[in-house]
């Protein structure tokens, strides 16, 4: 594989990873935290209505998890395509 092709393949894998994680980010924040929040509120979750909990706390934990998962995935990807520093 030429350097050019390698960089192309690396970039498309990178985009796939970003799209996957940002989809989770979108579903948690906007679908669960905002659009369907009233429906989710009907479900009790450790003393919280579930929608309220996602809106005010759960989403933040998910964000932390997402960034770390992304950083780990990207480190692996960098090694795989031999573009790490």
């Amino acid at each position, binding site marked *: 594989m030429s350097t050019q092709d390698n960089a192309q393949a690396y970039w498309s894998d990178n985009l796939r990873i970003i799209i996957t994680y940002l989809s989770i980010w979108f579903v948690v924040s906007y679908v669960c*935290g905002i659009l369907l929040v009233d429906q989710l509120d009907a479900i009790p979750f450790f*003393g919280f209505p579930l929608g309220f909990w996602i809106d005010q706390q759960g989403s933040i934990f998910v964000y932390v998890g997402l*960034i770390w998962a992304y*950083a780990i995935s990207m480190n692996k990807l960098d090694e795989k395509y031999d*573009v790490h520093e």
Partner: protein
Amino acid sequence: MSLDLLTYIFIGGSFALYIGIAVWARAGSTKEFYVAGGGVPPVANGMATAADWMSAASFISLAGLVSFIGRDGGAYLMGWTGGYVLLAMLLAPYLRKFGKFTVPDFVGDRYYSNTARIIAVVCTIVISFTYVAGQMRGVGIVFSRYLHVDINTGVIIGMAIVFFYAVLGGMKGITYTQVAQYCVLILAFTVPAFFLSLQVTGHFLPQIGLGATLDSGMSVLATLDKLSVDLGFAEYTAGKKSTIDIFCLTAALMAGTAGLPHVIVRFFTVPRVKDARTSAGWALIFIAILYTSVPGVAGFGRVNLIQTINGTDNTGTSYAEMPQWFKNWEKAGLLGWHDYNGDGKVQYAAGSAFNGPKGKPAFDGDARGEHGERAVTNAHANPTAKNGAPFANEVYVDRDIMVLANPEIAQLPNWVIALVAAGAVAAALSTAAGLLLVISTAISHDLMKTCINPNLSDKQELMYARLAAIVAICIAGYFGINPPGFVAQVVALAFGLASSSVFPVIVMGIFNKRMNKEGAIAGMIVGLGSTMAYMIYFTFMGGAKEDLFLGISTGGFGFVGMILNFIVAYVVSMMTPPPPAEVQEIVENIRVPRGAGAAHAH
């Protein structure tokens, strides 16, 4: 020990620490001044980013905001943390690889245009100044309340401290003071939060405590809902704003967070691309410690506030028996009471207590009323109980006192109160320093060096950077002493500008190789122009609420501006020639981590 003495010890001690660090971390070159030499470890950068990001607004105002608006406060909690996901995945690693000093550096080089660069400089300066004014004010409030000095003196003391370490140490000094400031502010926020949670629910962690069941057999949130409804407020856990408004507000805050120049530049300071990613992860962990405690602090604070004022039998407490904190904050002008029903008792319920903007009291100088309360001149003529509340509201409580007054309301020991004061000052100073640095860099580096006189030596540029920092501190101090009456709206403007201009222009520069200068400039102008026009029309020119576009409030319009920016930029770029080959090469290059090296000069 008295509270005053403890406060002096805590604030004085923290200042000595910051100054010590500043002396130790003096900057000797522009590289050290702008990006701390590019060698900050990711964990330290994460802490510094967290302190930089969490301002007086996060520390003092956020819990108060959530406490008073309940569920809808979630938009701020999600918006101000979710932006880090965008920052980590869409901006930070690539900008680190690009490896210059500032946001205008990237915009100017990527779009091969000094026009684009100057628009970015203007955005950076406007965003940062609007933001910094609020910080200086925060410092002033804390000083005036706890150290009994005039607000203006407080602002000047704050300016002097920031001056010392920002001008001397540049980014290097700021970074390591911010690490110390993070430790102070996080302790100051979490210690009272633990105490409060333990006191109200028996659980240590406010994150868990908020879901706990009280002795009455009802959960904390159900108690809050009941208290709120009984007093004529809407349910605490129910949303009041329209879904589309909350959606746009959250999105604008997220994109705005990712596009704030003082946050972005923090990622230029780490050694490698990989470190930019992990340092975003660390930053969000450190931020999440505070942000996930906020809903608990807000909820417990609200229960305590209502029960202290209205008493356990819900009939009010006589003014003479009100605890000292009530009178202290009344003296500071952030609480007000008028005895409408003439029973000598303080009663809190839904509705505005006074006939002023946001129900704020207008005090009659230092005059005192019948019960010793501060006399007001704008009492309602015929106050009525709202929505089935048992009495008309008699109290104005400023949202901003919630976090500061919480330890006093909960009768926590004096050292906790002193710690909170030191924490609030740390939060305000750390953010102010980061912003001032961005302003001075934009002037010395992007204007003086890049646009006006490329022959400046490193030493001269450093001198300009320091001069610009001094001027910026003086202007910020001026705004702190003479605050524009619209600080809150102005902060919304900063986020609107960042989300409608800085964020999209950088994202397109990285992810769309075909994007050219014509597209980027047109997009920025449309995004900026539409957002500013909307905000100015509805905030300052009396635009009617019914005329809001789809009911989207001014805070959320930055999201619409961002979409417009993307569309216009795409269409214009398709109709104009592609960017030159060497620019496309820059894009190819920033997409691959290897070869980042240290941040370099031109």
